[in-house]
């Protein structure tokens, strides 16, 4: 029998246990509420070539021959690989997890349910036919260790709520949807305004018009500016995609892609919803300037993509519990500039103002992205006029960034989740108000 450790050049183990508590209230009815448990681990082994990876449900920490059996099992998997994986050197260290202002675990579930129900009730009103509110709380205990002797352990609590209001009139069905998620602790108290806002948007949208698509000047609110940074720049700067030859940003370090005042950052150290104390392969996290003053400066990396591609920073490996790490964004944003909101609308003059996000998607190889706004307003002579709904924006990564004409002077972040390779991780996106010239706006409206 081959000795287990023979040929194994590296391994790491990431074990995540925890609990998820949820409450779902639909039109005054508590549909479900309760707690579930999870225990997942992922063991990665490098032999002479590529990765052998074991994903284990219900892992019990073990040592000695039991652990060696697991290593050997993973090593056998690696035998079918051919790509020579090299791991780049990366700084180590762990940041403290920001303290919780109020620990959700100290609030009993009956109280959470009562508070959520207040939010749900506050979305009631004339024209509203349905309200739904969800609370979700995930307590994760993460333990990382590798064959180089690095060990990290931390606990993260993410919690928050969504509220949906549906308005209907003569077969016209519209919705308002608000999300508030945080790493800073229990956030369900005194949130009735959030429910009222969802209801207000849903009812207003009954009278909104669908704009006629075409090229126009567009003002994006901070939430949408963040989605823009995430879809148009963030994904295309991910080192694994660069390595595969599947990003238009590949080979373009040092090239100008936007104006001098455009800086786009991914920063996992920021205490926002995408915060990571240490990345999923035990590497210290670091602020990374993807675009600095209009120039492509850094890719986002894991140790593997750092060694293969270079030109960037590691510390961007992230993973769901039990899943292998991938290059991922964390808190991605456009840096604030120096324009006021008034200046931005005045400069836009005639065009469209887009607010809120229903998500987006990008094909990084083709360099084409799309994202959708929840609603917006026509801008006429620098003033917001008619409300519009169901508007999307699409563009080419390499040309669109040059068309950011103004950046506002105040940045705001919004929490969300980002999907890639079947894994969903918490992120935040943000930016200031921005003015985009010649934006390609999709809408099925007619004159």
């Amino acid at each position: 029998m081959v000795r287990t450790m023979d040929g194994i050049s590296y391994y790491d183990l990431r074990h995540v246990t925890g609990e998820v508590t949820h409450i779902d209230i639909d039109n005054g009815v508590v549909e479900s509420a309760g707690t579930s448990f999870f225990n997942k681990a992922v063991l990665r082994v490098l032999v002479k070539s590529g990765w052998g990876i074991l994903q284990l449900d219900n892992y019990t920490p073990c040592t000695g021959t039991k652990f060696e059996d697991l290593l050997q099992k993973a090593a056998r998997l690696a035998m079918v690989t051919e790509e020579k994986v090299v791991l780049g050197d990366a700084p180590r260290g762990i940041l403290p997890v920001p303290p919780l202002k109020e620990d959700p675990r100290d609030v009993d579930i009956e109280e959470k349910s009562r508070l959520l129900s207040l939010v749900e009730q506050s979305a009631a009103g004339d024209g509203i036919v349905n309200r739904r509110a969800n609370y979700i709380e995930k307590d994760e205990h993460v333990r990382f260790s590798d064959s180089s002797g690095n060990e990290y352990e931390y606990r993260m609590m993410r919690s928050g709520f969504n509220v949906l209001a549906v308005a209907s009139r003569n077969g016209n069905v519209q919705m308002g949807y608000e999300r508030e998620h945080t790493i800073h602790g229990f956030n369900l108290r005194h949130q009735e305004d959030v429910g009222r806002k969802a209801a207000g948007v849903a009812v207003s949208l009954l009278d909104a018009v669908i704009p006629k698509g075409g090229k126009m000047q567009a003002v994006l609110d901070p939430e949408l500016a963040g989605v823009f940074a995430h879809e148009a720049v963030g994904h295309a700067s991910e080192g694994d995609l660069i390595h595969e030859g599947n990003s238009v940003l590949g080979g373009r370090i040092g090239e100008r892609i936007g104006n001098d005042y455009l800086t786009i950052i991914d920063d996992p150290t920021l205490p926002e919803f995408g915060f990571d104390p240490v990345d999923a392969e035990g590497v210290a996290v670091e602020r990374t300037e993807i675009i600095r003053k209009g120039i492509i400066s850094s890719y986002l990396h894991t140790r593997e993509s750092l060694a293969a591609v270079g030109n960037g920073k590691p510390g961007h490996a992230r993973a769901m519990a039990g899943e292998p790490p991938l290059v991922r964004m964390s808190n991605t944003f456009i840096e604030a500039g120096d324009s006021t909101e008034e200046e931005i609308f005045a400069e836009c003059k005639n065009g469209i103002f887009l607010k809120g996000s229903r998500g987006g998607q990008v094909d990084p190889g083709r360099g084409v992205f799309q994202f959708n706004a929840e609603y917006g307003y026509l801008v006429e002579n620098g003033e917001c006029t008619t409300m519009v709904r169901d508007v999307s924006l699409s563009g080419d990564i390499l040309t669109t960034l040059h068309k950011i004409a103004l950046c506002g002077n105040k940045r705001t972040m919004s929490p969300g989740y980002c999907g890639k390779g079947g894994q969903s991780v918490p992120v935040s996106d943000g930016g200031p108000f921005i003015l985009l010239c010649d934006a390609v706006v999709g809408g099925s409206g007619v004159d």
Partner: protein
Amino acid sequence: MRWWVAVAWIDELLAEAAKSVDEAEVFFVEGESVSADLKRKNVSLATTSRDCGLGIRTIHKGRIGSSSTSNPADWRTCLHAAIASTKLATPQTWEGLPGPADLSMTPLAFDPAITVEPSTARELLARMLAGATEHEAEVTAGSAGLSTTRVLLANTHGVRYTDQHTGVTVSLEAIRGQSTGYEFDHAWALDRIDPEHVGERATFFASESSKGKDIPTGEYDIVLSPLAYADLLGNTYIPALNGRSVHAGRSRFASSLGQPVACEGISMYDDPLLPGANGSTRWDAEGTPTRRIDFIENGILRAFAYDLKTAYRYGKQSTGSASRGGYGGLPGIGHHNFVIDGRRSTLDDERVLYINNIVGAHTANPMSGEFSVELSNAFFMEGGQFQEPVRSAMLSGNAFDLHHTIAGLGNDTRTVGSLILPSVKIKSQRVIGK
């Protein structure tokens, strides 16, 4: 029957539950999967996954509680959490979990020939790569995976159902210049997928679209491939058939029963017993025997989908439509094999804009059906020939309204996820050029 012995704790769990609640149900899943991934043309990683977990529902005086865990040995903690959760839920009209029906336990979507081995995954990758050589484009990434899953559903009324599923998936991504192509295939049996074809299509689309030109904004007659059509339907039209959304006022179809919601000749149904289909099953996620549901017959809306909870609440019958997203998911309303059918014909006798894929379908408005998405691998097409590729454009419309302007269903049929559908031709849709 070795497996029954291994899960003897389930009877113990149900007996324990019966001491404090009216009814209880356990959904237990155990499986293995293996996958191998390509980085360009080389296999860069191989993964195996051992999945296991259980979901418990307890019902007491109309209050439904739930919990789940990935540790079967710790079922007691999970059961207590479910019972505690029962106390929080609002009581509702509830007429009981189903009792045992005389159903065959022979699996409908299980291929004993599937070996969950990395070498099989690697062979599938090699076959895709062989197909990919037919066109001039670089492979960027790809994946092949195999899985086998055992499922068990048991309740305090004596239901003890088991099922087994297998799955095989392959996908490949390619690029030529700044033009990308993607293709995939999935099935429950190894001989029901065509890896060479997947490889060939991925490089074909990357290569063919590389000569793309911009087009002017205007109205075009379009053909959506089964892939693009499925993406659009899955985010708008199909969720509107969910009985819970209908009764909650979240569906555009809320007052459309008996009304035309699609062109004459269009039918949509769920057939859980369709031979050879991926989602075939004799019982749904809460043990209700499955049956065919005709949602849309000849363009007229005839039915909605129900699980037990929604059916009891609104005085309907469960349609056997309960499904779960894994052991941890509560049963919700879904479908098994959702089929779109009608009279078939060639769609490109006259010049049409053929759209193979769309970017951003998930951003469609699920309530109103409005969407505006970016096109991906679009071409003008006539007489079965791809003509000029389109570089980039947006398609805007309404997923509900466009079903009233369907000009025909194609002769092709493809399985995309749990949908089985042809390509569809739609007249005069708004396309925004660059």
